């Protein structure tokens, strides 16, 4: 089981490590930069734009800082689950991650019209856990019994949730430039799913009070497509092959509106309303298990194969039902509202709001920014944001232009640069574009 847990954690962290975010910094540069996730209604800065690789990602771990669960010992970094467990309260914790890699973007602007096409690979992951689950992994059922008083009096409710998906996206952006101030745009995406896992766990109660009896009350299912190769309570094999393009098709749409004047910029966009249809399998277990060991009516007649019988019985006991399953997953949608006011030629103030939905939990974020443009080829800004987890972050963003090449980047949590161990979140975006 611990192996399974570590797989889940690792998957989430692996996908989230490539930086990007729900961070909002680049929205304050969206008139000048061609970053991934840009409002489709915003006119291109130039007549011809080419987006080069753009990588973004975010990770949020509600249970706190990285330093809560690892420590340093003799120069080695040690993942200390006990420390982590001690830091947790009796509630559910979220670990949330998202990422996107744009491979290319090509756009052309005409007098009242512009279009763009692009390709990207995107994904997200969500993992919910609680103190008992971490405790179980950290100490085992026998060890936890000594440490957790509640475990001696009642079953533990684990109910972990794991949702994740990744997909390719081919997008077509169209925008109508109504006049010098107003423009509207839409995006249509064809999606091809790479893999998905979606869990539905109504109940996963584990009673560890008697170490000589396995007692569980379960009602859960995990639907997966091209991610889990095999699954049992004690093992998990990950699929390492890439499926054929179009095996899991989907569509998504975005729409936006943008107002721009010399002093004011206001944008609104509703992004990624869509879904992917997956053809996969469903792993499930339902019912109550109570196993006190291999029943032998006369122990004096035990035969040589008893250990193997026990192994076989345990395997059968933890077997997971597997069925073919088709299912849909929603693309995480976002509503982004932003506005900027130019105080001077070099200073702008801004604000933005993000509402993310179609995820396990909805999420909101408010950001305030200041942008400083000392030269036409260089911009830098700072932002302060707060989100629905009541986490306050301070970030930086900026861009630099050399001839037709633009480099932009954003980071929503400055302390990460100095001491990652004291951070519970991380979101960033970096990319290149060419425009003329």
């Amino acid at each position: 089981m611990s192996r399974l847990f570590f797989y889940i954690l690792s998957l989430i962290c692996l996908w989230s490590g490539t930086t990007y975010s729900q961070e909002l910094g680049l929205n304050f540069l969206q008139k000048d930069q061609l970053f991934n996730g840009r409002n489709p209604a915003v006119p291109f800065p130039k007549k011809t734009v080419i987006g080069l690789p753009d990588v973004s990602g975010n990770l949020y771990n509600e249970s706190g800082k990285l330093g809560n669960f690892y420590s340093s010992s003799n120069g080695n970094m040690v993942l200390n689950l006990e420390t982590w467990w001690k830091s947790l309260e009796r509630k559910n914790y979220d670990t949330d991650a998202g990422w996107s890699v744009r491979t290319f973007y090509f756009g052309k602007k005409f007098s009242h019209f512009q279009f763009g096409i692009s390709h990207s690979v995107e994904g997200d992951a969500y993992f919910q856990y609680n103190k008992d689950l971490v405790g179980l992994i950290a100490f085992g059922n026998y060890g936890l019994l000594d440490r957790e008083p509640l475990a001696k009096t009642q079953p533990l409710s684990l109910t972990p949730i794991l949702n994740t998906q990744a997909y390719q996206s081919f997008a077509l952006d169209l925008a109508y430039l109504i006049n010098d101030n107003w423009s509207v745009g839409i995006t249509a995406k064809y999606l091809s799913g790479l893999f998905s896992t979606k869990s539905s766990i109504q109940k996963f109660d584990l009673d560890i009070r008697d170490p000589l009896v396995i007692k569980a009350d379960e009602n859960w299912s995990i639907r997966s497509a091209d991610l889990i190769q095999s699954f049992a309570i004690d093992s998990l094999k990950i699929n390492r092959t890439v499926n054929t393009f179009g095996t899991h098709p989907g569509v998504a749409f975005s729409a936006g509106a943008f107002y721009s004047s010399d002093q004011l910029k206001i944008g609104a966009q509703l992004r990624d309303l869509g879904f992917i249809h997956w053809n996969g399998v469903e792993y499930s277990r339902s019912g109550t298990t109570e196993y006190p060991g291999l029943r032998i009516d006369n122990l004096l007649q035990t035969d040589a194969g008893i250990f193997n019988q026990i192994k076989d019985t345990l395997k059968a006991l933890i077997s997971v039902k597997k069925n073919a399953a088709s299912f849909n997953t929603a693309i995480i949608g976002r509503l982004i509202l932003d506005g900027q006011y130019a105080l001077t030629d070099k200073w702008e103030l801004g604000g933005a709001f993000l509402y993310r939905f179609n995820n396990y939990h909805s999420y909101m974020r408010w950001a305030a920014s200041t942008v400083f443009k000392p030269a036409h080829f260089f911009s830098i800004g700072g932002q302060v944001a707060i989100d629905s987890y009541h986490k306050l972050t301070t970030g930086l963003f900026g861009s630099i232009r050399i001839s037709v090449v633009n480099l932009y980047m954003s980071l929503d949590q400055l302390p990460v640069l100095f001491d990652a161990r004291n951070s519970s979140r991380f979101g960033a975006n970096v990319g290149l574009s060419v425009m003329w």
Partner: protein
Amino acid sequence: MKSTHFLILFLIILSGCNIKDVSLHSDAEWAFPLINGNIKATNLIRESTSDAELIISQDGSLTLKYTGEVLQLTKRDIFTPIPGGIPIPMLDTLVQITLPNVNNVIIKRSVLNQGNYMISYSHTRPENIKLQFWVPEMSVNNEPLLNIFDIPYKGILPVSGTSSKYSLNDIVLKPINNKITLRYIGTNEMGERFKITAGFFSFDQIDFKYIEGYIGQNVYDIKKDSIEIDFYTGISGDNATIDDPKVTMTAVNSFGFPTKALINQFVVETNTGSVNFQSPLLDAGLTFNFPKVTEAGQSKTTNYVFDKSNSNVKDIFNTQTRRVVYDIDALSNPDQVQDSTYFVTDSSKVTITVTIEFPVKGTVKQYPASKIFDVDASPLSDLEEGGLLIKTTNLIPIAADMQLYLMDKNGQVFDSVFALPQTLIMAAKTNALGVSTEATIHTQVIPIPVSKIASWSTAKSIKISAWFNSPSNNLPIIVSARDDIQIQVGFIGKLKI
């Protein structure tokens, strides 16, 4: 990719730092059940005393019963067929014969079985004659036994011959004063009577289906036997006592005459010698019931029970006991009743069975038992470290110290789980009668040291040795059929991730 590799990657990515060494620090101790088994007291006793039969009474009480061979005496053993072969001459037309006294038996009435008789003759008369032969004391189907022979003259003298064989089967013989009479009449065609020159009566053997008459005093040898007692094997001193052992001698008799057992030997052989079995019953003599003439075909049973009230049985059964040896003969008509009518049928027999019963009530100290189990212990190699958690719920009023020996493919012990035997099973609580009233739960961990996992996983068999102990107050306890031990075994410890 191993999970630890994922973790390393995870931490590197999260931290954004150049971290050279990352490891997982986990002391997770897992527990899961392996076995949920049961040992009934009856199975445990059967395993410990393979020579005994375990008797379960209706009230659940248990008795170990050692049974000797069935000693048997049949009619064939005491009354052999009378061999024939020598012709009895008939010197006159009436010859009286006294029957031989076989085994002190004087026949008053009998039914013959099998065998044949013949008549031989010789005469010198040149004519056809008729010869009539009969035995007045013999009859068939309530008709006197009569044989008539027509003997033709063929021109050659003397005329000699022998009749066909006539069956003796089912002929009723009623000797008078133990005598029978052979008679004949010879006549010619004109009816004139005459004596023949020579006549002989012969038979191949005479056997009896039924004999009724006087049966005198005879000693019949019944073979010697012994009963092995394995209850005390492996123990010494006063480490096992049986509260009320019993020895029972059972005779089932269908002979129709009184019989008395002659006890030539009845001893308990021990490690150091032998001890005589003593009882006033033996002194008085053991006689066996028998059916009366009117009850022919029936069997009568006689039981002699020797217990602590009428014998030294409790004293002579102890940890030194190895076997009981007995040599019994049977004496017929012990009182020599002269004017008696007894009987023997063809199927008459007497069987004598000796049983020794140990009610499972008493005390034991360090009572040993062991059993070897074949195992494939290779799954142990999946363990990192830990132990076996054993929980026993014992309703048997006996505790057990145990040791587990690990054996290689040649059956050689190469290690033991404990340095010294450990008490893994605690005795159930008992009432004043020694009957268990409440199970005792005991939990213990058997460690599997890291350093021994590799060697223990090569074990091919495990010898479990147990030493049983009744409560230390030395009061006798009673083990009943409902008593059992529930044994739960689980693993606790770390697994290889």
